[in-house]
């Protein structure tokens, strides 16, 4: 795509940035030749164009086979056609995604039967991919067949709602597809919001080979389009240029053209934003963001987020196998100091392992406050009056985790607990988490499905990939199995309540805070909608 014509260059402003001869001399003879030459062709930033600095390029363009790559997933959320999406609501003056409101995007309608087991997708007619092929039920069926064949991302998520075989997805007519689940589920729509993206099947089939029937090789290298934005240029490792899709069937994107520039160093992303070279800088540290709050021409968008920061304790290993010790730990965490000092006040105090704003959240899930005397008393009950020594593992280079770990270890020392802080690189951290060999660690999570059943499946039951604590409560597993088959909201909420009573007793995690999402942007940028999955939606942005 690097050699693709960028089209109309009438809106290009040529800038002369060359130095004087005197400056050349001062800079040294060795680079003289380079310095005499000046660049041209920088795009003027018009009202309908945004430039966003991102920390990394995406790993590939094939969402069925993409590793957990947040940059890649964020880009794909904007350029793949997703059939359904969450609506938007106001929360404390900020626009956030409303997980109780599912709206059709490329779909005309999305409905389940009375039981919640058979779901029917009706697609809008006349929607076309950039290739000119019309998006039909055949594309949906082929895309889901491909996802099941991949046995990776979507196939794994679909298992939660009883979709395990390609035959469970059937074409009814050219614009209607039916999904027949093995069991009814209250999560069906939420899971489909994550999973119901569609490929241009005719285009991909033209690149398939007998050895590669799903065109994996072609798809991973070539940008996919047809969503809110189409990718019009991709320079690997440098930039992705997207333009609003004229065929997008929902409310049209407000910004016509978006450039994502790959700038790995956070210091450079900040500098480019301050110099007005980019409009949004993603992935800056909280310290950088706080420094920029009063910068001229920059504003910081702050929005309540569903990201939660917690400290799982290895429940199968002493001393954290003792519930009294875990309760004592819950009393040594300086919660208010963490909100103030780590997040600069831009965070909410968590009051349950079930995140704030998740339906069913109750503050009975975590009835603990900073109280060293109570902690000492609980340690005495556990037969550990002299305290103990342990380790807090953090992700190397994560400043927020490091500062939270320092605050927790300092407070724990008051109760006689010595905690050594151990930074781990990602590879080691993944492995030790899987082996459950980390006694105490700092982690953060953002549930893509805003539901306690999903939280239990991924994080609080045996086999859950994010169950870093190694938590195994037979009653919780029973509740999870009941939730899996129950759509009745009254029953579900009763069970949600019981879940949090159990969590308050067992204390698998120390819940630290729920930080706001803070984003420094150029003053002209508006329209930010806080996504529930952390993947920015470009179509709402305005400039």
């Amino acid at each position, binding site marked *: 795509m690097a*050699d693709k014509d960028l089209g109309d260059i009438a809106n290009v402003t040529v800038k002369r940035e060359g130095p004087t001869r005197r400056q050349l001399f001062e800079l040294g003879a060795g680079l003289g030749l380079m310095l005499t030459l000046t660049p041209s062709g920088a795009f003027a930033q018009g009202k309908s164009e945004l*430039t966003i600095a991102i920390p990394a390029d995406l790993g590939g363009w094939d969402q069925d086979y993409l590793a957990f790559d947040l940059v890649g997933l964020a880009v794909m959320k904007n350029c793949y056609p997703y059939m359904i999406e969450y609506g938007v609501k106001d929360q404390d003056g900020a626009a956030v995604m409303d997980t109780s409101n599912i709206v059709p995007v490329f779909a005309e309608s999305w409905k389940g039967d009375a039981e919640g087991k058979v779901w029917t997708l009706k697609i809008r007619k006349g929607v076309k991919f950039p290739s000119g092929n019309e998006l039909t039920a055949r594309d949906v069926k082929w895309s889901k067949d491909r996802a099941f064949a991949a046995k990776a991302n979507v196939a794994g998520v679909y298992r939660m709602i009883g979709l395990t075989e390609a035959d469970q997805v059937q074409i009814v007519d050219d614009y209607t597809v039916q999904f027949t689940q093995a069991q009814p589920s209250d999560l069906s729509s939420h899971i489909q919001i994550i999973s119901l993206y569609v490929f241009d099947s005719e285009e991909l089939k033209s690149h398939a080979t007998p050895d590669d029937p799903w065109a994996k090789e072609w798809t991973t290298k070539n940008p996919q389009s047809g969503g809110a934005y189409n990718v019009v240029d991709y320079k690997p490792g440098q930039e992705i240029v997207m333009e609003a899709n004229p065929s997008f069937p929902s409310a049209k994107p407000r910004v016509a053209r978006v450039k994502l520039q790959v700038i790995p160093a956070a210091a450079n992303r900040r500098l480019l934003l301050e110099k007005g*070279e980019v409009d949004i800088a993603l992935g800056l540290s909280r310290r950088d963001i706080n420094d920029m709050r009063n910068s001229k021409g920059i504003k910081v968008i702050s929005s309540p987020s569903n990201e939660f920061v917690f400290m799982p304790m290895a429940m199968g290993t002493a001393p954290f196998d003792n519930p009294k010790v875990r309760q004592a730990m819950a009393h040594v965490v300086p919660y208010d100091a963490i909100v103030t000092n780590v997040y600069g006040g831009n965070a909410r105090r968590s009051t349950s392992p079930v995140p704030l704003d998740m339906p069913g959240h109750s503050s009975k899930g975590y009835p603990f406050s900073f109280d060293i005397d109570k902690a000492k008393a609980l340690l005495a009950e556990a037969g550990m009056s002299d305290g103990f020594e342990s380790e807090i593992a953090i992700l190397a280079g994560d400043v927020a985790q490091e500062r939270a770990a320092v605050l927790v270890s300092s407070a724990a020392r008051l109760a006689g607990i010595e905690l050594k802080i151990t930074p781990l690189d990602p590879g080691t951290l993944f492995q030790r988490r899987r082996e459950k060999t980390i006694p105490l660690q700092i982690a953060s999570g953002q549930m893509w499905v805003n539901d306690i059943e999903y939280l239990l499946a991924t994080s609080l039951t045996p086999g859950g*990939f994010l169950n870093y604590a190694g938590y195994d409560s037979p009653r919780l597993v029973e509740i999870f199995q009941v939730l899996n088959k129950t759509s009745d909201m009254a029953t579900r909420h009763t069970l949600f309540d019981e879940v949090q009573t159990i969590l308050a007793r067992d204390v698998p995690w120390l819940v630290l805070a729920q930080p706001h999402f803070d984003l420094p942007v150029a003053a002209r940028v508006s329209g930010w909608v806080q996504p529930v999955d952390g993947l920015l939606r470009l179509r709402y942005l305005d400039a």
Partner: protein
Amino acid sequence: MLAPVLVGVSIFCFLLIRVLPGDPILSIVPETATQADIDRTRAQYGLDRPLVEQYGAYMVGVVQGDFGNSIQTNRPIVDQIAERLPRTLELVVLGFLLALIMAIILGLFAARNAGRIGDHLARVGALVANSLPEFWLGLVLILVFFAALGIAPGPTGRISSGIDFEVITGSLIIDSIITGNMDALVSTLHHLMLPVLTLGVIVVAPMMRSVRASALQVMQSESYRCATAHGLRPNKLLYGYLLRETMVRVPTLAALVLGNLIGGSVLVEFVFSWQGFGQWALRGLLLRDYPVIQAYVLVTASFYVVAFLVADVVQAALDPRIRV
């Protein structure tokens, strides 16, 4: 020479990265993955097989030019090397040439002014430059030349956004010359300015010291003193007697510096958003992407061997007493 070195390096690297803690498969499976999913993914990449079998299969592929697929991106390693390596080579070769030119000029200047203020200044200056962390120097240069003076482009990669170019060799300088794309050439050279200067400044010191020491030795030789005593012009002395003799000793050290730059340019690439070979390898190392790390080590080792081979040839050309 190349084959035994590469076989040895490949075995060492293959074993070493597997001793490191960290499982690459855990970084690519989704949060809903079960143990069965993890086992199946591991089998897809052949990581469930015995080590000897894995190594054998890997080397059979390497001999056929197939380095496998990246675990993180599922893309062929060969494609990624073809994409990344030319970017780093362009940067490193220019940085090296700049350092070499500066080293020769400063080294000869210091030798001819040995013991005087110019000599001291050149030596101390080179030593200070050598002591600067490249990450820090790169950021300072960006702040001065981009943020303050506005004469350098922002650290946004290899070329200005919006300039179209055709990729043929992967080197933007060569490609833009081949295609006659002057906009791309000018922008590329402008973007190369600061990273090349950073690399050059960082590595100039050892080569400068070598040139100076070598030149001093030549200046004390009988032939040079005889030429001086005969009253030859300074230019004749410099180009006819001093330069060539001095250069005889430089190629070996230069090869070492060049090899080191190819393997060690990662921080400069990071600061200048270069997305080169080193940055690719660093990400591979952090996520234990075995095929990426193995390919990086093999390619870097190959460059060392080739650089030393070239150095031997150059040295033989400069000094007829040496036979390759």
